């Protein structure tokens, strides 16, 4: 019933092929949904929203004095990925995180990739998050990025591409897990009929990863989650992960450093901490080393880290791999370190800092998406086809002034997915953020967080800009 008048409008649609026929891996879901009346569906929707609010599964809206918390809009129509497709993605993501870690090791040691001219040295050395202080520093187990969120999109032809890597503090995984819980509560019958790969083991995998990277290989290390505090927009997630792992959640003021060791203040005195899953950026982590005005961090933490008495996930200095200019070079890294072709390609990208690219970017800005190299969350971005003349002129000036700080990409019309809007399913653009854990092994929880741009025609899926999310199902089989 629900999908009778659904139209793909010529976009690549996850559920329907070009002729409007339902793809095989969506057929059982549609059969299940068809048994529901609109009224029943609406009731389920309201019940799910209310349960999110009651459980406090919310994010804080910045700049609101009342400290308003909103729920992250959740769409009940799940996104489905056949197993074969997922296996390919999994291989591609493993390949990518391996290359990124080798790259980070290299640039903080011999810098072979720069010496051999594969990446122009100036790009790395000018990167905002390149931490010179950590040259020749050996991180435990030689892993830099332990937790990575890599954003994937599909273009007109349905091929997956990597849009960006988040190698600092990727967020959103709690929504992935809560979304699944909500779907199971709302539609228990679906999961009996359709074989969906489970995701609940994420917290156990995360804990295994964090334990593996203890600084001295301790058998039973003390692991904590470091949060900026309850007013941080992702506090719910920090708390959720700590609870699921059964480890303490701490704020900077709970920790102190003495003799290069980190302790937490407890009611029975001090207890040493071995591994910190920190959800605070490098800049704020230690007021003695980075931002002096930060009250979130722990004075002396960086010294303790350098002395090898505590480990951080992710390591300090991984932000250089998040730099969107560095993204441009990831396919080269894969070839250089692994001798392989990238399994999941990048989106074609222009570097305005290169003369020819710059000319092209400035002349064609109205067709391109221009992004600031070091911003996240959909900020500092120009979508050419939707921008006004004044906005384009403004960005042209910015790019000309600081070409190193920008990249440009053709506007990709992201794949669409039926999403319940205004009382019926309509196509909305989506992306996918899988979460990759790199400990003893590389583990990826099947699927990831599917984010959806709820505004008609919008390509921006970020929660801060009107995005929502969906449950993501990886099937055990292909149909």
């Amino acid at each position, binding site marked *: 019933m629900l999908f009778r008048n659904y139209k793909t409008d010529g976009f690549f649609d996850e559920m329907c092929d070009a002729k409007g026929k339902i793809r095989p891996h969506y057929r059982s879901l549609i059969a299940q949904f068809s048994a529901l009346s609109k009224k029943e569906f609406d009731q389920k929707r309201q019940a799910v929203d209310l349960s999110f609010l009651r459980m*406090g599964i919310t994010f804080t809206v910045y700049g609101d004095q009342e400290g308003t918390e909103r729920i992250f809009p959740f769409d009940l129509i799940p996104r489905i990925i056949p197993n074969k497709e997922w296996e390919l993605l999994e291989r591609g993501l493993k390949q990518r995180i391996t290359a990124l870690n080798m790259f980070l090791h290299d640039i903080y040691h011999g810098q072979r990739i720069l010496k051999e001219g594969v990446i122009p040295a100036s790009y790395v050395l000018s990167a905002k998050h390149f931490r010179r202080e950590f040259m020749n520093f050996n991180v435990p187990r030689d892993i830099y990025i332990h937790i990575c969120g890599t954003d994937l999109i599909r273009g007109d032809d349905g091929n997956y591409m990597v849009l960006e890597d988040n190698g600092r503090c990727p967020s959103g995984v709690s929504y992935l897990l809560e979304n699944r819980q909500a779907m199971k509560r709302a539609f228990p019958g679906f999961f009996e009929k359709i074989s969906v790969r489970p995701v609940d083991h994420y917290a156990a995998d995360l804990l295994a990863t964090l334990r593996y990277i203890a600084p001295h290989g301790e058998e039973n290390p003390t692991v904590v989650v470091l949060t900026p505090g309850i007013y941080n927009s992702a506090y719910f997630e920090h708390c959720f992960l700590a609870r699921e792992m059964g480890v303490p959640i701490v704020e900077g003021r*709970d920790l102190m450093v003495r003799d290069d060791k980190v302790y937490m203040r*407890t009611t029975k005195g001090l207890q040493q901490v071995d591994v910190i899953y920190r959800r605070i950026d490098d800049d704020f982590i230690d007021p003695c080393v980075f931002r002096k005005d930060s009250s979130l961090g722990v004075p002396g933490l960086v010294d303790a880290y350098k002395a090898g008495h505590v480990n951080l996930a992710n390591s300090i200095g991984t932000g250089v791999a998040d730099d969107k200019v560095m993204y441009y070079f990831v396919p080269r890294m894969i070839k250089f370190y692994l001798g392989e072709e990238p399994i999941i390609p990048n989106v074609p990208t222009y570097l305005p800092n290169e003369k020819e690219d710059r000319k092209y970017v400035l002349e064609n800005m109205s067709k391109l998406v221009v992004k600031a190299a070091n911003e996240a969350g959909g900020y500092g971005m120009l979508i050419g086809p939707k921008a006004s003349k004044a906005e384009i002129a403004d960005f042209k000036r910015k790019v000309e002034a600081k070409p190193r700080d920008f990249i440009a990409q053709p506007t990709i019309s992201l794949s669409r997915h039926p999403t319940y809007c205004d009382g019926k399913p309509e196509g909305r653009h989506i992306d996918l953020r899988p979460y990759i854990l790199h400990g003893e092994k590389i583990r990826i929880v099947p699927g990831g967080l599917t984010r959806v741009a709820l505004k008609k025609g919008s390509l921006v899926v970020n929660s801060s800009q009107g995005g929502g999310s969906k449950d993501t199902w990886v099937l055990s089989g292909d149909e």
Partner: protein
Amino acid sequence: MMLSRVADALYWMSRYLERAENISRIMDVNLQLMLDYRGVSDAKPKEHWEPLVKSLGDEELFAELYKKTDSRTVTDFLTFNKKNPNSILSCLVVARENARSVRDQISLEMWEEINRLYLFIRSTNAREVWSSGAHDFYREIKQSSYQIQGLAGATVTRDEGREFTRLGRFLERADMTSRILDVKYHILSPGAGDAGSPVDTVQWAAVLRSCTAYEAYQQLNASDLVPWKVAEFLIFADSFPRSIRFCVKTLDSSLHQISGSATGFFANSAEKQSGRLLSDLTYSGIEDVLKTGLHEYLDQIQSRLNDIGLAVFENYIVYDLSDLEREIQTQQQQ
């Protein structure tokens, strides 16, 4: 063993919940009582509410915010006014904020109920519920608080966190009981004249109801509502869960659970002070109270409860780190 900040948050979470519950009960009882005074002069409501605001310790702020002292203004002040840090709304915001910061330490069920209560009082229809019937409104808050206490007992591990939660609740409860009683102190002060009038009996019943003690008292005293007996009951009753002695006994036992030392001894300044207070409450009676004067006596109790709270803070939350070496050694030996 738990994070000091977590212990602190659990302690304040339950203190503020207890405070909100008590203020709800006080408001409910007193608003009903005021129904008896309908149509009497303006002086009566003022006379009735003023000691209450005073006893809750916010008279200056109240005078700043309102011109008149009547049911309306006092209700607004104690229920919805955000500028009053002890209004029910303010208490619940702080309680929930503390609960949120220790979400990993309390059960999902308990958190959901605290959050639900918070969403209720923050919702626009809370005021509507209030205007359509204050009784139902305050009842909702009290019920929720009882439910949270029940959930704490039924779904949370009996560890140190539970003791800090209990400590906060009983410290607050002892304090509130003393304040509720203090509202009527003038009747028991030496030389008071109108004690024993019919209005007075109603007032003493209200004091008992404000502590949910009316029925318990009646069972013990067979509807003989005598002021000094009411005071005796609320201060010294051995097994009534809101009497000051009972509260101090409970919080003393929580302190010993936390430190692991035996009751009757003390391992730190908090236990020393709670033990002394408990012993004073055990080995004195209403005649000692009347000798000192009820108001003065209750004042001392409040300040001693306050000192216990401070000692807990110094011993467990922001302890002195000057002797770090010993601290670490003790830690490693465990």
